[in-house]
């Protein structure tokens, strides 16, 4: 087994594109769930909104890339509004039902035959990120080395921009949550009736939180689609949403840096496990394949099994996350 290779992969995964995208989506979910207590089970839907927001406007409608980016935010906010209106006055579990249903419907709609002229159906949209790569200060095809890691200029550019946005978003959330607005959100999370009794319009605050978190989720989807230079409906399935949930709970909800920490831990764990299993000596692999059907395909399914088991065990035994404090944990209180 090539441990050097495995560790190299694992360490480079810790700051990779996936970590950045999922962390950003989790920053949004943190605003929803961590700070406001909203059970958004459709973050993948917001990511899809971001991805299609840029893909469709730039590729089909020939908008300039920057108008497309602006549209992503408008679209994310509108989606939050549409989901919030019927649900935010009701008990928490109704929002979860509607968001999971809406996210799945967005995926179905985007991949459908009817929408094909707009969304490209199952093949999706591409060729919309050219402007982004044109302004790259790095040579797209050249390798840049940092110690043991090497990045293609194209990926490096995405990473630099993505991490900058992620850090800015995190700092923004930090400041927001220290403001009176953020304190109100937390008050709503802790006791909605008390917040209402103090004259706060709970519905509007929840709606604003849903929009802010949704915008950040849409930005994550937008960056992901730019990195892949394509948008595909099936990338935004419900498992993605719950991977983000797992990441948030690993890091600890309602903590500013938890999305980044959680995402980094999650992805390095997944990459480590998958690469180790793939690198097993042939004999061990064969006997594992016979005993527990550990085929190549099943190794790639393991990450979802780990997400499921991890989410269940975390919610049960450590809802405050690995680093979180029980005092700041909404999940446990209701």
């Amino acid at each position, binding site marked *: 087994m090539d441990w050097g290779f495995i560790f190299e992969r694992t360490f480079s995964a810790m700051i990779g594109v996936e970590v950045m995208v999922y962390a950003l989506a989790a920053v949004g979910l943190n605003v929803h769930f961590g700070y406001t207590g909203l059970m958004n089970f459709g973050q993948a839907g917001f990511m899809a909104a971001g991805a299609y927001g840029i893909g469709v406007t730039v590729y089909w409608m020939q908008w300039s890339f920057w108008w497309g980016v602006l549209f992503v935010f408008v679209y994310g906010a509108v989606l939050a509004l549409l989901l919030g209106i019927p649900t935010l006055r009701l008990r928490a579990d*109704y929002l979860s039902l509607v968001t999971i249903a809406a996210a799945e419907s967005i995926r*179905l709609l985007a991949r459908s035959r009817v929408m*094909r002229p707009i969304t490209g159906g199952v093949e999706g949209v591409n060729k919309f990120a050219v402007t982004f790569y044109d302004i790259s200060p790095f040579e797209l095809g050249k390798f840049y080395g940092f110690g043991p890691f090497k990045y293609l200029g194209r990926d490096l550019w995405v990473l630099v921009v993505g991490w900058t946005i992620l850090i800015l978003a995190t700092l923004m959330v930090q400041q927001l949550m220290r403001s009176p607005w953020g304190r109100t959100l937390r008050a709503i999370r802790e006791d909605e009736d008390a917040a209402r009794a103090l004259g706060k319009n709970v519905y509007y605050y929840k709606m604003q939180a849903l929009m802010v978190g949704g915008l950040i989720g849409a930005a994550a989807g937008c960056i992901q689609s730019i990195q892949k230079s394509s948008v595909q409906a*099936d990338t935004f399935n419900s498992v993605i949403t*719950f991977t983000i949930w797992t990441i948030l709970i690993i890091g600890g909800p309602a903590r500013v840096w938890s999305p980044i920490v959680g995402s980094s831990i999650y992805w390095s764990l997944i990459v480590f496990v998958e690469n180790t299993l793939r690198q097993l000596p042939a004999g061990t692999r064969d006997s594992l394949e016979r005993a527990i059907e550990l085929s190549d395909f099943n190794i790639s*399914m393991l990450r979802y*099994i780990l997400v499921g088991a*991890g*989410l*269940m065990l975390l919610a049960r035994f450590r809802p405050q996350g690995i680093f979180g404090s029980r005092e700041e944990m909404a999940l446990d209180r209701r």
Partner: protein
Amino acid sequence: MAGAQTAAAQISDDLGVIGQLQYQDANGNKVFVEGVELTIDGVGSSTTDAEGKFRIPVSGPGEYEITLNIETLPSGVALKDATRGTIVANVSENNDQRVIFALIEGDSTTVSESNFSARRIGQLTLEGIKLGLYLAMAAIGLSLIFGTTGLVNFAHAEMVTWGALMTYFFNVYGLVGAIGLLAGFPAPLGGPVNFILATMLSMVAGAVLGYLLNRVIFRTSRDAGVSLLAQMVMTIGLSILLRYLFVYFFGGKYRSYSEYGAQRANVFFGLELTTRDAVAMAISVVVLVVVGFGLTTTRTGRAMRAVSDSRDLAESSGINVERVIAQVWMFGGALAALSGTFFGFDTVKWELGTRILLLIFAAVTLGGLGTSFGALVGALIVGIAINWSTLVIDPELKNMTALFVLILALLLRPQGILGKKQRIG
């Protein structure tokens, strides 16, 4: 493509559009049609073999328009619906996509029919009722679990899938399929059993799964004082865990039971229904009526409804609440298994339940979360609404109707049709 896409793409080493051309002659015998040419523009073509089979390999998932060359049909054989000579095959990552060209002896009969004809609406209503009945069996369990414990069980869809998989398993392998040592024992230990017995075993397996989930996971959580929202997140984790354990052990392939495959539809008053579906619908009605009577007249059923209404009142009047909850989970599991078995008539696959989760949620919300009869009413309405929606929207999008029903219900009557106002708090 990375992540989930890569994983999915690995299934697709060998994709194609497949099918088998056949028709029934005057005596009701199957006749395979040989030598018919089928083409996907720009991809390839295939000519049917002696068994009427064809296969056109494609390079990846996507939508392909496949055309049957009518000129190559033998004389005296025609497309049942002359407008359906070109159909769209939506090839997914998982498997060959089967397309069906309906052929008949003689001339094409179905002339293009007005969208809103009484016959079409009748047919859609019938299919809606069928969907609604199957859904209802899944929805009642979900609603009762919510009623008795306050928990929205997102893993309920996997209990539906479990039913289909278990029926398939007993019907095609028997227990020996999992435990090789049982070879030589009589069925169901050592071999497959017929579909009806397999369904019963599957319902038992569903009840066992329900019991275990409650006993091992959710009862211990309740005892430990884990909050309802945390438990809800646990059901999500459980749902993903089960779903991918299914794909791990069952594979991504689509399969079907060894009996009751595609049947020829019977026609009553212009409405088409296969005998299989008619029987399944009748069984569903009987089961639902029995459930209804059980809930209203038997001691256990009344206890279930009492706990749903008010846990504290029920407990103080001497009902063993934990026992009732265990019964509800078993009962919900068995019903979900039966529902999954019926949904599996077309294809048995690992994500069968996940695809109808949206519909189940819409049904229980519309009927009123926590009310068992509401779930039944909601399921029927959702089933019919979804099928009617195909009058105006593409059938591919019909499940989205459930989302609209869900949102409309929340806007207009959030407590549901049969729900009580205080439930929505």
